């Protein structure tokens, strides 16, 4: 059984090298703005750039709205499909998989053509409209992840029993979802939320094609014009992603365990 372990270590080691070397290289590169010695100058340069603050703030706000809209759209749907409309389930699952199959650039092209200023719903006719469209586009992008997270959350709690207990206690449906179901799947919903944030924060294609001042296009612009700042930005982005994923991991420890899990 020794060779087995040897191959495992080899595979793991090669994989680790592939994933760690670019991070190390990027970090070293980001410290090399000054000739001859390492410094954090590139980071200072990034943080002091007002466009960095503005675009990052913009993307963060859009991200928060995307999370809220995503929860409002997904949670009731999952709840009712699980509880009352199980025959809709295959259709709903298919819909949530579509964003993984239809490229984002195709979707945004459709939006631009469909919702231009002369259409019935002229999203792109105003800045606010475009912001709304951008939010909806991000909700769509994150739909597979949000749906999966919420669906898993509802599977681990017995929503049927919870609902019946709440009904006997006289709660209406909005109260049941808001006060009973949501708190019980909070961890799952937050996982979906952080994943949404990780996807939205540096998104380039849609923001760029809708001409919004988001973080992704800013990154791209810096990359085309600077040498060391992009490396610093890559490290910053990696840390943000790590933070979002780390939150999901931490939250996972608080997730309710399904009672049906026996082995």
């Amino acid at each position, binding site marked *: 059984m020794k060779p087995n372990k040897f191959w495992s270590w080899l595979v793991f080691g090669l994989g680790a090298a592939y994933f760690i070397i670019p991070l190390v290289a990027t970090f070293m590169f980001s410290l090399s703005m000054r000739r001859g010695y390492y410094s954090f100058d590139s980071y200072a340069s990034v943080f002091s750039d007002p466009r960095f603050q503005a675009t990052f703030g913009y993307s963060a706000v859009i991200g928060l709205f995307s999370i809220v809209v995503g929860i409002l759209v997904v949670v009731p749907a999952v709840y009712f499909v699980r509880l009352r409309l199980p025959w809709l389930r295959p259709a709903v699952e298919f819909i949530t998989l579509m964003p993984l199959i239809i490229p984002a650039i195709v979707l945004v092209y459709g939006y631009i053509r469909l919702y231009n200023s002369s259409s019935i719903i002229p999203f792109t006719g105003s800045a606010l409209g475009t912001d709304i469209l951008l939010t*909806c586009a991000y909700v769509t992008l994150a739909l597979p992840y949000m749906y999966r997270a919420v669906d898993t959350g509802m599977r681990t709690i017995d929503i049927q029993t919870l609902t019946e207990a709440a009904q006997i206690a006289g709660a209406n449906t909005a109260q049941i979802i808001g006060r009973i179901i949501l708190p019980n799947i909070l961890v799952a919903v937050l996982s979906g939320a952080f994943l949404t944030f990780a996807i939205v924060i540096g998104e380039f294609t849609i923001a760029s094609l809708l001409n919004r001042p988001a973080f992704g296009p800013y990154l791209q612009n810096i990359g085309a014009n600077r040498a060391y700042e992009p490396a610093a930005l890559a490290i910053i982005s990696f840390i943000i992603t790590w933070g979002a994923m780390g939150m999901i991991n931490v939250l996972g420890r608080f997730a309710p365990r399904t009672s049906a899990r026996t082995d």
Partner: protein
Amino acid sequence: MTDTTAGQRTRRRLSFEWLGVAPFIIFAVLFLMLPTLYLVGAAFIGRDGQFTLENIAGLFTDQIIAAYWISIRISGASAILGALVGLAIALAIIRGRLPEGLRAAVMTFSGVASNFAGVPLAFAFISTLGRLGLVTVILKFIGIDLYKSGFNLLSFWGLTLTYLYFQIPLMILIIAPAVDGLKKEWSEAAAILGASPWQFWRYVGLPILWPSFLGTLSLLFANAFGAIATAYALTGSSLNIVPILLYAQIRGDALQNPGLGAALALGMILITATANIIYLVISARAERWMK
């Protein structure tokens, strides 16, 4: 009397259920179906508003065919390599008798790396393997000149290598539950029947993983095929892949023909859909033995 109230109550409850599902359905129609259908339709409508196949025919130019071809190759190569390497790593950390903590660490890292795509990823690889990248410089220092030996980050292999940074972790995340599902008893039963470890994988382990493997493969393919930010940030518009071509078309930098743009998009949808249909057909045959 009672009948009517019961009927009303059912109806009210029904409408309430639909009210709950309605936002989701409206959302799906507005932001997934209508845009897609609109583009599919637009691909067949000429400047004069009449039905035409000209836009489709317009795809068959050398430049566009070459773009599709290199896109398919990069997506295929990064999907296949990503799937194979991801599977190998998943097997190593789950079945390879490595320390317990390693697995959790790899899974967490995979969650991060699979989302670390787009522009920052391009920056990381430029800092690593670009002309002035750290690895390039170090290798040159010890006498290996990557770029003289034909490597270029802005090429097919350069882009594939970069894409693997999110493809491999995605594979690990999706295939890990399937690898977990391989029971220890199966390999023991095979061993006691005389099978070598390799024979176990050949006849039992890999066939059981095959449908999940294929499913993830098609997902990775679609993932790479639609990816643009990484490639765009790496290469500008110098690498002629389909999403960059479409991006340029939308920005109005090139082509200047909305019908052709729609046809490009239709082609992309057809290719990712085909990848998924191939998966569905093969896995339906491979999954005979499943419930």
